[in-house]
């Protein structure tokens, strides 16, 4: 079938998606003034299953990799402050390069497919997570660190038991921004044959047939909201002391 991976294998990434799927869009194309065709949506909702799973996979894997790297970088920079400026600059460059350009800069090295998409998306998240982690560590009150030192904590214990827990709100906020942005940007993975919901936006003549675009858009927005709310809940759970009320 016309999966992007197969198209990719035949060298047709990008431009030639439009011939696919014309037959089952016909009833709606006959009524071009209708922006949303419920009949088509009802009959074709199945086709969104696999792209949704692929999309989730792209987002989760990229953000996990991005988080692991950015978090480690932040810990290094926290200990060796001279690293802070260069790391901010490098992650800033990775953040600035548009993802679609990044895909094709990586292509000669990592080839067509979702691996390339994951590398580019992970690179995009680095700056957001790194900056927020640094901000969180920076905002920890000195009094908390001094109290811990007074109780005999080593530097390492202070980092893991005092500074990082107190930085959780900022770290999770960074993760939230990173994941919501990645859910949106992962639609571009279609251009590098990485699958995902972009295949239901840019494919099968959808530029003149918006029903599929609307459904894909709705799934993307719902997925972003789910991650957003999930992380808000996780943050509440991870920082129980913030929910305590002063009497």
């Amino acid at each position: 079938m016309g999966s992007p991976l197969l198209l990719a294998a035949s060298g047709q990434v990008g431009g030639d998606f439009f011939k696919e799927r014309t037959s089952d869009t016909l009833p709606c194309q006959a009524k071009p003034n209708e922006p949303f065709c419920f009949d088509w949506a009802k009959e074709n909702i199945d086709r969104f299953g696999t792209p949704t799973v692929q999309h989730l996979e792209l987002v989760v894997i990229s953000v996990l990799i991005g988080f692991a790297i950015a978090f480690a970088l932040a810990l290094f920079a926290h200990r060796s402050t001279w690293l802070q400026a260069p790391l901010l600059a490098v992650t800033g460059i990775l953040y600035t390069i548009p993802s679609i350009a990044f895909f094709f800069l990586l292509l000669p090295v990592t080839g067509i497919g979702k691996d390339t998409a994951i590398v580019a998306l992970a690179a995009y998240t680095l700056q957001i997570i790194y900056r927020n982690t640094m901000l969180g560590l920076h905002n920890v009150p000195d009094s908390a660190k001094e109290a811990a030192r007074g109780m005999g904590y080593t530097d390492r214990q202070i980092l893991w038991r005092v500074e990082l827990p107190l930085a959780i709100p900022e770290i999770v906020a960074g993760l939230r921004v990173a994941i919501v942005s990645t859910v949106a940007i992962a639609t571009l993975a279609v251009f590098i044959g990485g699958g995902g919901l972009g295949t239901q936006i840019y494919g099968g003549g959808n530029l003149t047939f918006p029903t599929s675009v609307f459904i894909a858009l709705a799934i993307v927005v719902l997925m972003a909201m789910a991650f957003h709310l999930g992380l808000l809940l996780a943050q509440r759970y991870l920082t129980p002391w913030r929910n305590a009320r002063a009497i």
Partner: protein
Amino acid sequence: MTAALVPFASFSGAIEFIFSEQTSNVTGGAKVGGFEQAVELTLKQLEVTVLALALALIVALPLGLYLGHRGKGEVVLVGLANAGRALPELALIALVAALIGIGLVPVTLALAVLGIPPIVSNAYVGVRQVDPAAVDAARGMGMGEMEIIRKVELPLAISTVMGGVRSATIAIVATATIAPLAGVLTLGDYIINASIYGEDGRLAGAILVALLALSLEGLLALLQRRLTSDGLKVKTA
């Protein structure tokens, strides 16, 4: 051995594509590539980016500053910022092309929509973070509300405000890359229509788009330094 060299060969092919015109393999001998075409597509991407950014600024900056000054609308703005982030640019361009039409005007509008949320919300946050004592002092000196926004709050909030402008610019220039889907031929045409330009053209497009985005970001960083008042620079140093 040779496999390791493939990336370098690709990049040199792409550089060659930018500087010298070649015959397309696909479209029956049409000429593709060359410096003139690269410049033309770059300028088109720059044009649509600047237009959209200007439009977003005109709408979003006064709104964000004013709401921040009044301290109103936080819930709406936070929601707007989150929604803006979740909006997939590919769907936006596809819907604009399908429902409004193709060409420079619809694309500019679509890109401006992407730029508005970060500018509004950063302007709002920046102004809210200004020390109320500074605002009170300005009021005591007899400044009007508009004057306070312009002469006190905006200068003090400039780094946060510019942060929003930079995010907006990055989003707009990145999305301008897929503008060829809506009939505006930017550098993205090299990438999206690789069947015409070939693999060298596609990589050339990626290189030029990356350079364009980094140049804009660099320019805005410089602009931010120029706009930051000398008094503030001393404080952070």
